């Protein structure tokens, strides 16, 4: 066997001569032209809507009557390992919230947030949820500081929406940064 | 038939008047006592074996002997006439029909312990009784049995009637003192016991009406005569108020130790409609109930305690076979819940919780595990309350559950009553 380790046989030679491997490869590639596409044309045309379990941008919820669920108990702030949440409570008798105590300030610094979701677990009134917004990149540090009013606004992906699908989307950019606006009516599954 | 002692004048016309009382040998004991040494009187009461008729059954003579002898310290006697235990009406009869017997007993007791002022704390609902007592005290003053230098001796005594405002807890002696002092009726911490620090911070004896009514007879007829009635350990006559499903409900004066069966079947005329007896409460609703097999228990302090229940106030409540025990227990508990003073946690919160569960069970909304929950709560409350109210309440419930567990379970499981069948 010694000295004979570079051993060509006819089959190999023929394969090389007729570019069999290449053709086989091209055939696979060619096949994919007709198979279902699995890449995501994000952000220009498509967007992945995550499942409900996803931990994205925080959202402050309201109850069915539209009252703020947050009572400003500061437990989220207490539970936050990176100390990125600031809550200042206040008394409010106008019926804005479910109790006479609401948050005067509710701020989160997303630059420090690690989306662990402990705040969500700590919330006694289910006011705080980690939502499904994940396009948080921006060009100004200030934009990473989210306030109560911004977080109270409904997120583009409704809570009832199950997620786990790709929807049609379009990319928009303005001075605040980039935004991919989903169109929930046109959905498809990834696999 | 036992010759009534305490109730002997009860049916005499105008029995509440001092003339009637005097005609029947009234105030002779007091006159006799005034000539005796106070220690002799206390020793006589001790020898007679008289035990408190309010429920606890503590030796009366011993209680009196705890009072300091120092004549410079003011002392008080309080008569506990706040008869609030459901089913009990013995003191009421004495107060309304023979108030002078009580006054004489109090006068002797005051003389023995050296009290110059005595109070009768009477249940507010006993309007007639309070009026008659006040009249009787006025009569006693006018005849010289009360007031200054009574009957030429240097003993002076004033008796005051204080009407309660409708709280069961005032039957507890320290709560009674608080109420008498004008404060919220909440039990006090013991020790110090009232014999050291009682009313207005002074040594005080608190006795039940029936107890005090026994005293003149002991003085008149001697300690050994008294001790010879009934069993040796708790002698004397006892008033039994029989109520419930019997043919002849009423107040019976019988020697201590009369068996329960005899009281119900001989004196009270047996169960109505000859139905079967289901349960009987032997001594007011805080006493756990007994069932038919216990009927031969002698009605005295020790025998009943041995059966896990108590003589209490001697109020015998008879329930026949048609009674729903769950409902009966709920009614009893609604009472305790309503009457809890709210001072200590287990009684205030525990009884509240128990009643909430009991209502559920009775109304056919019981859940699995409710019976265990009730027993757990009874355990949480028992022995941890400030005063005996909470203990009495859970003892009664425990007794009911232990004796009639299947009935409770039926309520929970079938959402309706086992006895009456009517699902509610």
């Amino acid at each position, binding site marked *: 066997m010694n000295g004979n380790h570079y051993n060509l046989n006819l089959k190999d030679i023929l394969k090389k001569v007729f570019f069999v491997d290449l053709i086989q490869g091209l055939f696979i590639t060619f096949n994919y032209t007709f198979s279902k596409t699995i890449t995501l044309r994000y952000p220009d045309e498509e967007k992945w809507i995550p499942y409900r379990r996803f931990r994205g941008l925080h959202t402050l919820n309201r109850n069915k009557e539209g009252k703020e669920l947050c009572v*400003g108990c500061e437990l989220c702030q207490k539970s936050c390992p990176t100390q990125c949440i600031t809550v200042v409570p*206040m008394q409010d008798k106008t019926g804005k919230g479910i109790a006479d105590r609401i948050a005067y300030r509710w701020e989160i610094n997303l630059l420090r947030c690690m989306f662990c979701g402990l705040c969500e677990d700590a919330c006694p009134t289910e006011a705080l949820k980690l939502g499904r917004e994940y396009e948080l990149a921006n060009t100004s540090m200030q934009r990473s500081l989210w306030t109560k009013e911004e977080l109270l606004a409904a997120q583009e992906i409704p809570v009832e929406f199950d997620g786990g699908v790709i929807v049609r989307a379009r990319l928009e950019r303005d001075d605040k940064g980039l935004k991919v606006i989903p169109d929930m009516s046109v959905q498809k599954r990834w696999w | 038939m036992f010759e009534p002692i305490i109730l002997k004048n009860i049916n005499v016309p105008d029995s509440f008047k001092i003339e009637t009382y005097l005609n029947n040998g009234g105030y002779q004991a007091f006159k006799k006592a005034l000539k005796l040494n106070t220690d002799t009187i206390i020793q006589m009461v001790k020898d007679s074996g008289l035990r408190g008729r309010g429920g606890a059954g503590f030796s009366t003579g011993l209680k009196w002997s705890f009072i300091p002898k120092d004549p410079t310290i003011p002392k008080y006697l309080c008569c506990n006439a706040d008869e609030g235990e459901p089913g009990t009406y013995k003191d009421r009869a004495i107060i309304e029909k023979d108030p002078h017997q009580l006054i004489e007993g109090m006068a002797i007791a005051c003389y023995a312990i050296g009290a110059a002022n005595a109070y009768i704390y009477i249940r507010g609902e006993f309007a007639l009784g309070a009026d008659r007592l006040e009249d009787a005290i006025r009569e006693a003053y006018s005849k010289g049995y009360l007031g200054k230098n009574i009957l030429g001796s240097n003993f002076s005594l004033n008796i005051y009637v204080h009407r309660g405002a409708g709280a069961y807890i005032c039957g507890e002696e320290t709560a009674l003192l608080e109420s008498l002092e004008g404060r919220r009726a909440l039990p006090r911490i013991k020790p110090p016991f009232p014999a050291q620090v009682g009313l207005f911070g002074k040594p005080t004896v608190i006795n039940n009406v029936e107890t005090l009514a026994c005293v003149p007879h002991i003085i008149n007829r001697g300690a050994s005569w008294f001790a010879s009635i009934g069993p040796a350990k708790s002698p004397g006559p006892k008033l039994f108020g029989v109520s419930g499903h019997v043919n002849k409900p009423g107040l019976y004066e019988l020697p201590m130790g009369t068996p329960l069966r005899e009281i119900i079947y001989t004196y009270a005329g047996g169960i109505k409609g000859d139905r079967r007896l289901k349960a009987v409460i032997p001594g007011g609703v805080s006493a756990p109930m007994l069932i038919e097999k216990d009927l031969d228990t002698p009605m005295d302090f020790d025998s009943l305690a041995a059966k896990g229940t108590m003589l209490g106030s001697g109020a015998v409540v008879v329930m026949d076979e048609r009674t729903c025990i769950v409902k009966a227990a709920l009614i009893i508990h609604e009472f305790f819940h309503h009457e809890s003073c*709210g001072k200590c*946690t287990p009684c*205030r*919160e525990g*009884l*509240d*919780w128990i009643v909430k569960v009991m209502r559920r069970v009775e109304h056919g909304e019981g859940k699995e595990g409710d019976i265990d929950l009730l027993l757990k709560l009874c355990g949480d409350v028992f022995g941890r*309350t400030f005063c005996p109210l909470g203990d009495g309440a859970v003892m009664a419930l425990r007794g009911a559950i232990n004796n009639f567990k299947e009935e409770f379970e039926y309520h929970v499981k079938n959402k309706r009553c086992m006895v009456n069948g009517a699902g509610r």
Partner: protein
Amino acid sequence: MATVKINGKEITVEDGTLILEAAKGAGFDIPTMCYHARLSKLASCRVCLVEIVGQKKLQPSCVTPVMHGMEVLTESPVVKSARSSMIELLLANHPLDCPVCDKGGECELQDVTFKFGPRNSPFGERKRRFHEEDYILSPVIIQNINRCIQCKRCVRICDEVVGASVLGSIERGAKTGETSFVKEYLDCDHCGNCIEVCPVGSLMSRPYRYQSRPWDLKGVDTVCTYCGTGCQLTVQARNGEILRVISKPDKGINNETLCARGRFGYSFINSHERFVTPMIRKGGTLEPVPWNEALKAIKDGLTEAMKDGRKTGGIASGRLSNEELYLFQKLMRGVFKTNNIDSGSRWNTGAVKSFANVMELNKGGISVYDALNADTLFIIGSSISDENPITDYLIRRLSRNKKMNIIIASPRGLKLDSSATLSLRHRPAAEGDILGGIAKVIYDKNMDKLKDLTGKEHLKNISRENIPDLTWTDWSSIESVSGFMLSANSITIAVGNDVLRGPSRIESMHILAEALRLLGKDVKLFPVFDRANQRGAWEMGVHPDILPGYSFRDGDGLGSEGIIDAASRGEVGALYVVGEDIVSDFPDGGFVREALRQVKFLIVQDIFLTETAKMAHVVLPGASFVEKDGTFTNQEGRVQRLRKFIEPQGDAKADWEIIASIGEAVEPSFHYGSVSDIFKEIKGAVPMYRGIDFEGLDGNGAIVKGSGIGGQGAGVVAGFSLRPKSEVRSQEQETPDPEYPFILITGNHLYHSGRLSLKADTLRDILPEAVVEMNEEDAKAMGVSKGDKVKVKGDRYEATLTAHINKRSVRGVVFIPENFTDVPVNMFFTKGKGFPRVKVLPLSSLSPQGRGPG
């Protein structure tokens, strides 16, 4: 001593020690809810139940004393399960609204539940609810009865310590709720001690409502600067904003108690009315300038003003720290070479000197607990319940379970009267005669033993006949006071600074004390001050005749009255006023205003633009009590640390820095870098302070020791006479004037202190406007009832005020607090005339149409 075994650990404790305390000593933690060390024992929560070997039932450890040989188990399974079930029962009806409850995070029930409680509960019923909306009980107290666990600590503290007795229980059983009987504003002290002792969030502070969580707050333990009691308090802030003041059970003489001023009077610190830059008068108005310009203006102004041999003077407040006061007197004496200094302007300077002498302040301080450990306590010259509420609370609490005769002599009815054995009502400014009368009775009864009594000849002027006239008190009351003193072994005489307001001849105090001492009694003298550092001011030598450390001297120095007098004659070139509003304080408002106009150069250093500051040529922004370091000496002589917590607002500076920089501007060697440097110097100059370690001062402070120097005692007495024939009777307007039937007296109101507290909006909410307090029968005679508007008219001034009724005050006297800017009570006064006489006109009689709207 009793030896007990707790969980197998043997421990020896005093007889009568509670099991709870013994177990704590042995290192075992027994939870409690209703127990409170300084309140009566209730034993109602049953959380502290323990097992005593040999006893069937579990016993509450908070009331059961140990007995020799007792074996206690605090951790047995039975105890643990009882504990946990008690907590479960407490929680059964307790709303679990911790997220919105202000107590969350510092709640005792929460803590106990986490530590000892069950982890779950089968309770599934509807919880008890008394109400949906919280009750507002007072401008500062808000209540949620749903959370109440019926521990009755609030009821007990209100009754036993505060003496207001406005809280109680309603209903019974499961419906029991702790509340007031009226569902509206309480007529109470608004002290908030019920909030402090509440173990749950049932009673809450309104100003602090929903402001923060306890873990967000940073705090500092400091001393209250409102009155002479010297309470320890903890100021707490979130992000530099002061949110609340609390008291701590283990700190200070006050423990958990504070009064309305201490607890709620902090909001002046963040008041927008504060001025925070130095200002110089330019063309009639004060204009902000930088510090260096202000200092230069001061230097130039002083040089200019002191030409022609004009005088300089300085008046500092008894609310400054020791360091500031020391520096102030050093600046005046050392740099400006004058003895014209004084603290405050309300009192006669000579009277202060006598007071310091007869009260033996130079002999060192005395703890209030020692002072109250006496058989007889005699309080005179102080509306102690209003001026020093915590001293009042202490007396009430300590006298509850002790045989102590409390005797109160005052013109006004006091809350403490309810705890007193005897209350005398006397004519204003008659304190000296009352003390003299008592001394006289004692002397007459023990003439043989008191042969050598100093000053006995002065007692001749007092007799059974003239006492009613002099004091409006009958001789028999004086005799019974003497009787109480003679039957006691230890006597404490507490004298308040109201004796300095009128010509009250406090010197007879000395004769009384001397007489009692000669009879072998233990006499303690306890001064009561309404200014937090009044004692410190004198100890630091802020008085023309007192040098630091009570070295008394007779000199040419002028006190505040002398300075103002001189100013009215145009003799004062420069006047430096620190923290004192003399225009509002000096007992002749019109005169002092005129006098200050004559001052060539007036420097005022304060934190608000006071009436005095408005007249100044230069105003300098000082710092509030949380913005500076220092020490305060309270009425006991207890030195306590003031701690800096936040930076002064704006350009404001700590007062000692300002004083030092003024000194440095004139005399460059006058340089101080820190408060501890100044304290070091004080230790050198004032021997009483030698033993005090500045850094080591903790919550209990340190009491100054007697120095053995100074003090004239008998000398003071020798120099005066109690009531000679030619006494200046005119001063007191002896003859009743039918035109003006009332004597007007003044002092601090319970909710205010000086003029500073008026800037605290919480306190202004409690009492927003000036009131006039009068006797009930006087009011009835005029048809005035509480809350009516009346006009008080003197010969120089009149004002319309709201009437308050005091049932126990003496007739013929009205009281107007000195705290209100809109009714400057000093305008009624005439210099040198004592208490003014006024008449009171019900407003309805002024307008024939009846009371108009408003």
